[in-house]
Structure formats: structure tokens, C-alpha cells
């Protein structure tokens, strides 16, 4: 109700969960032929978990998944997700790449992947990263939703301490925010690229994180990552490093893209957006749009590759 259209929405500032959910409804109402809203589950605290579906028809077409905000304090990612959503609706029918992709594939975009945590960053603790679930026997709250997936779960690269920021949870998929995506991906069965967006550090990462063994598709993933970060840098010169999770940063078990890769989704990537540390999670809002614009070029590179290399 606060804006009459997504053209009037302010993409250059951070927004609350309610404002983002309002934006989602507005975007769907403005583009009923292209965009729909799917609820894939509810969070621990009972909030709905929404995914935007961009589709021009067909039945269970090959699809691309993009999520932002799984770590709630990484605000530039949810803000970029909002910008991506608008960009897709603006470019379909105008931009040849986006049009070709959507004429043949669907795009699923989950903008607020950790709603409870995100609401908590606005209300009580801006630095909150995890979910808000309670762990029996502990006073500490929350599970790291990027350590809770059934891929190397429980191995080195996550903590068994509920008070740790990288607490993996008692069992894999214990978090409804994670289980909702697992169920969606498995029921859809035709997702060809899965991109999970974090901040910060300016990295483009591919599996594995829980083991040092190279992914079977490493060569292709590495080449594609190189093309993607080159496209990203072409706009503002922002330099990204790329490589496997374990080699480029550290061992991380139970992570999203290790699980999606093990499901057979070859083009599984994690982004770590701006910056390299001057502001970290507190990236000024003035950098939202340039960050989203440059990231979009990398996403397009990956999506085009997935379109042109069916498997």
C-alpha cells in the first residue's frame, strides 16, 4: 500500500521483511502472465516461505534456482534479490538473453530464505545469521542454515555447539527453512542450476566444501566461474576470486550447493558478494544497485550456459 508500483519501489535502500513481501505481491500483480508466488513452507516461527516463479509456460520445464538471504545479516543479498526480480520482469521480451532463457526454462527466486532470522536482524540483532529455532538442552538459539544440508553433514567444517555461529543442528534438514527447499527441489526434479547468494568476500564458489576431492565437473564449473566473474568485473571492475569452496575459503560441511550438486544439479554455485571487508555485512545501501547490477551479469552467464548445455 505504501507504493503504487514496483517502478516506485526504492531499490537503493534496505527494506524490512514486510516491505519485501509487499513488493513480491505487487510484482506478481503487475506481471500475472510471467510471475507467480509459491509458498514452499513455513519457518520455525511460522512465517510463510515464498519463492517467486518466473515462467512463460510449458510443464515442469528445466529450471534455474536462485536464493538470497539464507544468512539473514547479509542484507545486500536480499536487496539484490529484489532487484533481480524486477530486472527479470523488465528484461523479458526486451533482452535477447533473458528472453531466450525464459522461453525455454523457468527461474525460481527465493529472496528471503531465512525470514525468521531476517525479521530478527530488523527487530533485535542486526548481526543475526542463523535460523531462530530452539535447541533442546541449550539456551542458545538457531542453526546455521548453510551447515544443515545432508551433504557431509556432521563432518569437519561445522560446529556441534548450539552456541556457535556455524552450528549444524542436531540432524540434517532439521531446519524447516532448509527442508522446504529440499522438498521443493526433489519434487520439481528438473532444476539444472542452483545458485545460493551470500556476502561478503567477493567469491564465486563451487563444490565441494566438505571434502577436498575434486567435483567430477570441476573443469567445466571452473571455466564457467571464470567467465562469470569476468562478466561481473566488466561493469565496475569488481574483482572476484573463484574456485571450490574447500580450496578457496575453508572446509564447510552440510552446505547448500554440496547437497544440490550431489542431487545431480551440475551448475551449483555459491556467490559471496561485495565487499572484501571494508564494511562487510554492513555494506552501505548506496552499493546495493551496483552490486546487484554486476552480479546480474555473472548470473546471466551461468543461466545462458545452463540453457545452451542441457544435460
Amino acid at each position: 500500500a505504501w507504493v503504487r508500483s514496483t517502478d516506485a519501489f526504492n531499490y537503493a535502500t534496505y527494506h524490512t521483511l514486510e516491505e519485501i513481501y509487499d513488493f513480491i505481491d505487487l510484482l506478481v500483480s503487475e506481471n500475472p502472465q510471467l510471475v507467480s508466488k509459491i509458498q514452499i513452507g513455513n519457518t520455525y516461527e511460522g512465517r510463510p516461505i515464498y519463492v517467486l516463479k518466473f515462467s512463460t509456460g510449458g510443464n515442469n520445464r528445466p529450471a534455474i534456482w536462485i536464493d538470497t538471504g539464507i544468512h539473514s545479516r547479509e542484507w545486500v543479498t536480499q536487496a539484490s534479490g529484489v532487484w533481480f526480480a524486477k530486472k527479470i520482469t523488465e528484461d523479458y521480451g526486451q533482452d535477447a538473453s533473458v528472453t531466450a532463457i525464459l522461453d525455454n526454462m523457468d527461474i525460481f527466486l527465493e529472496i528471503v530464505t531465512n525470514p525468521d532470522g531476517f525479521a530478527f536482524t530488523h527487530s533485535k540483532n542486526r548481526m543475526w545469521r542463523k535460523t531462530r529455532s530452539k535447541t533442546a538442552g541449550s539456551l542458545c538459539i538457531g542453526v546455521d542454515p548453510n551447515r544443515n544440508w545432508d551433504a557431509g553433514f556432521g563432518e569437519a567444517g561445522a560446529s556441534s555447539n548450539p552456541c556457535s555461529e556455524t552450528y549444524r543442528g542436531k540432524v540434517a534438514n532439521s531446519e524447516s527453512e532448509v527442508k522446504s527447499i529440499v522438498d521443493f527441489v526433489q519434487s520439481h526434479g528438473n532444476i539444472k542450476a542452483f545458485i545460493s547468494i551470500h556476502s561478503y568476500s567477493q567469491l564465486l564458489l563451487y563444490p565441494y566444501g566438505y571434502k577436498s576431492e575434486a567435483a567430477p565437473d570441476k573443469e567445466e564449473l571452473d571455466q564457467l566461474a571464470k567467465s562469470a566473474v569476468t562478466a561481473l568485473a566488466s561493469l565496475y571492475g569488481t574483482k572476484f576470486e573463484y574456485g571450490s569452496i574447500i580450496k578457496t575459503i575453508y572446509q564447510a560441511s552440510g552446505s547448500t550447493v554440496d547437497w544440490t550438486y550431489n542431487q545431480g544439479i551440475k551448475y551449483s554455485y555459491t556467490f559471496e558478494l561485495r565487499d572484501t571487508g571494508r564494511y562487510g555485512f554492513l555494506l552501505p545501501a548506496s552499493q546495493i544497485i551496483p552490486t546487484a547490477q554486476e552480479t546480474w551479469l555473472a548470473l546471466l552467464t551461468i543461466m545462458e550456459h545452463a540453457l545452451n548445455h542441457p544435460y
Partner: protein
Amino acid sequence: SEDFVGHQVLRISVADEAQMQKVKELEDLEHLQLDFWRGPAHPGSPIDVRVPFRSLQAVKVFLESLGIKYKIMIEDVQSLLDEEKEQMLTAKAR
């Protein structure tokens, strides 16, 4: 709402595995309430950690006593958060 007055974010540069292990020991000291923004990975890759005001002195003495280099990346977390909130309110008003 949690406030972060006086919290600083330090960027730690470890020279070798031994120093890395020392920083990892810090990670386990829950009373320090450290929040690793970038965890210890390998020598050469920066470690960013938010340190509450009450733990600052102890952490800095610890690092300096071991010759572990660090610099202050964010002087006061709360002042950045205040700016962020101010920016959001201004944008909303506009």
C-alpha cells in the same frame, strides 16, 4: 534491541599454521562473545572478527603478545548501524 556500541571488527592476518591455531583457540572462548565474520581458513586469508567492547582489550593483548598482526577494520559497529538505520528512515520518508 542489541546494541554494538564500542564493538570493533578486527582483521587478523596470521603468518602460519601455529598462529592460525591460536586464533582458533580464541573461537572457543565463549565468554569473549566473538563473532567471526570470516573464519580462520588458511595462512594468507584474512580473518575478520567482531569483538564486543568488553573483550577488546583482552583480545588485542592476546594477539600482540603472540605477534599476530591485526588492524581495525570497523572502528565502531554501532555508528555504522546508526548510519544504516538513518539511511533507511530517510529513504522511507522520501
